[in-house]
């Protein structure tokens, strides 16, 4: 059974304090691993797609990496506006479905 587990559930950081969010997965033939950001009361917003182990993607203060069993979302020198819930999802090869983790709620304190 395809599964996605995110940790921690919640993370509080001081502004400028770098950290990482984890997404571990079990899927038959990974087609892609996705990171989304979700603000309260809104739908998830796409951030990154990673396709193979060793791949990295960056956007502003965010950097996503992928291994054969997990992905990390590194947040460098976060700002309060980075506060959101970050969701990880996987898509198995040959399938149309996306499986989501329960997310990490990030709070960045000024």
């Amino acid at each position: 059974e395809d599964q996605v587990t995110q940790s921690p559930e919640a993370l509080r950081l001081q502004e400028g304090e770098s950290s990482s969010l984890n997404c571990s997965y079990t899927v038959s033939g990974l087609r892609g691993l996705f990171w989304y950001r979700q603000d309260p009361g809104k739908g998830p917003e796409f951030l990154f797609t990673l396709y193979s182990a060793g791949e990295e993607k960056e956007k502003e203060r965010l950097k996503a990496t992928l291994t054969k069993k997990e992905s990390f979302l590194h947040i460098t020198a976060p700002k309060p506006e980075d506060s959101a819930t970050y969701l990880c999802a996987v898509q198995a090869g040959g399938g149309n479905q996306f499986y989501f983790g329960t997310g990490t709620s990030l709070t960045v304190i000024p």
Partner: protein
Amino acid sequence: DAGITQSPRHKVTETGTPVTLRCHQTENHRYMYWYRQDPGHGLRLIHYSYGVKDTDKGEVSDGYSVSRSKTEDFLLTLESATSSQTSVYFCAIGDHTNEKLFFGSGTQLSVL
């Protein structure tokens, strides 16, 4: 922003009544999805569509039906709403590559 509109944005209904949620897109994307989001469960797939009149079940499809008679519209119907269907419902769309999803703003449904 991807052109996705969900309606209604909020709905309160009573147990046993039928409810239809609508997702409308202006992107001409092939794939459309209905998810529900609940605390502790994350986003769970209800049904999805890979073309007009082509639909398939997700992991939590019991009690829900869908229809897609036009590319732009994907309807989710709760034939007889139950309190366990109180949730936030999100529609999402994917293009022909289906390599990422664009989400609507969600519908908050409360079944009393």
